[in-house]
């Protein structure tokens, strides 16, 4: 029996359930030396802002047990550069694009979104709300249901594209934030962004990141990310979810699908192995054939729990 890897993501049919995690794939050029981007469900590009952002000082990264902390500071060339340079290239590659947008004010999100409206090959916007809100004492948008609703509904009004707000796991009640995002017009959700962490060099007394605090990613956070996906899926069973966090291979990816993810995103694994996405797709296909699973939708969220 042949396995159909295609999935429906908020009305868009994707060739495969595997996409890239924003900021862990740049715009795909470097990785395309190793893999055929067309095999991916979509490329989720590095979050873009209105103007180019320089990002933070170095050190921007440090390793921790089974993970890494990063504090890049959203270095990116800005939405114009994306439209002029990266998007045309991605279109030539023939892979659907999910544009991740970021900003420090609601207005900035709106400007970036408007610039992307109608851009060829952009099938959805991922809204990276794990950004400090300059208008509210630098609180993360993602940490407050109201701020989340503000950004999402503003972008909703500005564009027609399907919206996937990307939620932070650093919250008491991710279901509440998810609800706020969905009530504000989101078609789906991306879960999750990095977990806030820190590391210190005990010999120099210096923080290991110039930004002091950073985002934890990699296998270490997989159980945390999976729990977020599970909780949100049980609360909103019909909402498409792009699940991510520590997915290194097809087995990890399938854990997320059984937990409630519609699609999975691969982030840190790309740093270790440029073929990680493709190997994951191939592994999922093998699993489906072995288990006689004709399409992923049929096992989504099917972890055996009561109710």
């Amino acid at each position, binding site marked *: 029996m042949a396995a159909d890897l295609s999935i429906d993501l908020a009305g868009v049919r994707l060739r495969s359930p595997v996409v890239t995690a924003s900021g862990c794939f740049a715009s795909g050029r470097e990785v395309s030396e190793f893999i055929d981007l067309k095999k991916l469900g979509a490329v989720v590009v590095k979050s873009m802002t209105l103007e180019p952002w*320089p990002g933070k000082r170095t050190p921007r990264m440090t390793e921790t047990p089974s993970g890494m902390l990063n504090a890049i500071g959203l270095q990116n060339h800005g939405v114009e550069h994306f439209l002029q340079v990266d998007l045309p290239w991605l279109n030539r590659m023939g892979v659907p694009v999910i544009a991740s947008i970021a900003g420090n004010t609601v207005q900035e999100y709106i400007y970036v979104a408007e610039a992307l409206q109608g851009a060829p090959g952009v099938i959805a916007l991922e809204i990276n709300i794990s950004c400090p809100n300059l208008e509210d004492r630098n609180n993360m948008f993602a940490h407050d249901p109201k701020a989340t609703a503000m950004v999402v509904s503003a972008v909703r009004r500005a564009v027609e594209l399907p919206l996937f707000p990307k939620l932070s796991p650093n919250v008491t009640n991710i279901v509440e934030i998810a609800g706020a995002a969905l009530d504000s017009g989101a078609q789906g959700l991306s879960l999750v962004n990095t977990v806030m962490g820190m590391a210190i060099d005990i010999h120099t007394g210096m923080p290991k990141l110039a*930004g002091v605090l950073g985002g934890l990613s990699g296998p270490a956070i997989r159980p945390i990310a999976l729990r977020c996906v599970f909780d949100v899926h049980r609360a909103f069973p019909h909402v498409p979810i792009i699940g991510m966090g520590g997915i290194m291979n097809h087995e990890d990816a399938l854990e997320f699908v059984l937990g409630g993810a519609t699609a999975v995103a691969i982030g840190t694994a790309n740093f270790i192995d440029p073929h990680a996405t493709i190997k994951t797709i191939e592994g999922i296909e093998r699993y489906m054939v072995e288990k006689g699973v004709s399409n992923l939708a049929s096992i989504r969220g099917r972890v055996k729990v009561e109710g």
Partner: protein
Amino acid sequence: MIQQVAQILSYKKLRDEYHILTIVAPEIAELSKPGQFINIRPAVDRQFILRRPFSIYKVNRRGEWAATIEVVFDIRGGGTAALAGLRAHDTIDVMGPIGRPFAIPKTRNNCLLVGGGIGAAPLFYLAEELRSAGKRVDVLWGAASANKLLNPIDAKRFGAQAVFTTEDGSEGIEGRVTDVLPDLIAKCGSRVIYACGPNGMLQAVTKIAQKHRIPVQVAMEELMGCGYGICMTCVQPVWDRNREHVVHARTCVDGPVFNGARIAWDAFPPERPAPTAPVGN
């Protein structure tokens, strides 16, 4: 750039101080140029998950049974410890060759190579290429002490002049490379400088080169998440073309070799960083 699982041809120790792995990787060897590096995954299943970057120390295109690359390293932590445990026939996952190589000058002839400790690694491969291009190569190695000087025997072989400095005076001149650099430039009539080592040394070497109005190419190091251009962890502050703004260039693919004059040396992190908004990322 290539990713492959490669076999170890041999492991050996250098002066009880450094470790040398010879890796069978024909295609990578074929493509590689001096100044480039390879990114090695020392092991799977460990608590550390990322690759480890190493300069290409030597290339043997007519290896016994296939072209090989050599890397030389000292043990810093888990990754290098794992690598030092590898033996002939073991296999490792390697990516390379990566990055901007050193530029070989067309007209200029006298080349001065300045290396600090293990940082001298890529300069061995460079020296070979320079000499086969008919250049004069002079060598200035510095280190904390004699045992930390990288392979001075070979260095003397290919260096018209080969000068060594150690901070404890245990070999060569007591002091730092920058103490003797000005005289050596004059003495050797150096027209271009290649330097690799600690940031502080590279900055000082660049200043001196600029005073002497000769170009300097520096090979930089920075923590690398991916080593092939997709994560933005490895950036260096560099001046944009018209020297108006400092921009962040990736060490892995926009470097590791930079024109010393383009590095914004004063833009490096402060002693006490301020906690800034954590994620984003």
